[in-house]
């Protein structure tokens, strides 16, 4: 879950517990470190980049 609050912080969960597919030719960013939960798959499409910052 991503939360954007009114004072400028963008937050995300530190555990990824839902499968996610980043489509081809798309970029995504997550504030790390994060943990991919057991049984969960994160798929990054061709030409795409997932950056954990």
């Amino acid at each position, binding site marked *: 879950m991503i939360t954007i609050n009114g004072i400028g912080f963008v937050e995300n969960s530190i555990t990824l517990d839902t499968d996610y597919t980043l489509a081809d030719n798309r970029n995504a960013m997550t504030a790390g470190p994060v*943990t991919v939960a*057991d049984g969960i798959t994160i798929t*990054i499409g061709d030409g795409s980049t997932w950056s954990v910052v």
Partner: protein
Amino acid sequence: MTTQIKGNDTSTFGGAITTSGSSTSTFGSDIDVTGNVVTDAPAFHAYTSTTTTLNAGVATKAIFNNVEFDTTSDFDTSLYRFTPSVAGYYQFNSSTYISSGVADGSQISIRVKKNGTTDYYGSIFNTSGTDYPAPTISILLYANGSTDYFEIYVRQGSGASETITSTGALSWFTGHLVRAV
């Protein structure tokens, strides 16, 4: 090809994996590599192109004033010593061919000297007649990756001066990192 990162299961990467920064990557199991494993681990092969004079009864540092290769520029061809820049366990090997006959019964020894103080001996033997001996050593030693250094010393007890050959193929000193720490 897509990349799949999975929790507690096999992840697949459609491209290269690049890490940055100084953090250590941790893998909970074996790393099975199909291609080559490329590292920057130190490895060197030093050899001589000049003679080393061995005065009788004196442990003398062997001259290795050239390198065949020195992957991390850790071998000093002026001081004839290896100061590895990565901490870990190193395999050292050396052979020094004495290019003159050594008196019957004379004792010859070779050693790796660590930090100028601690000797690790290789072959120690007595010659017979006009032998041209080539003492050798092979040993695994720890280095701290900063100040520890290693040299080769040879001692002969013939009672007269002898020389280590200037032929690099006959007198050499090699070493490489076996395991980093």
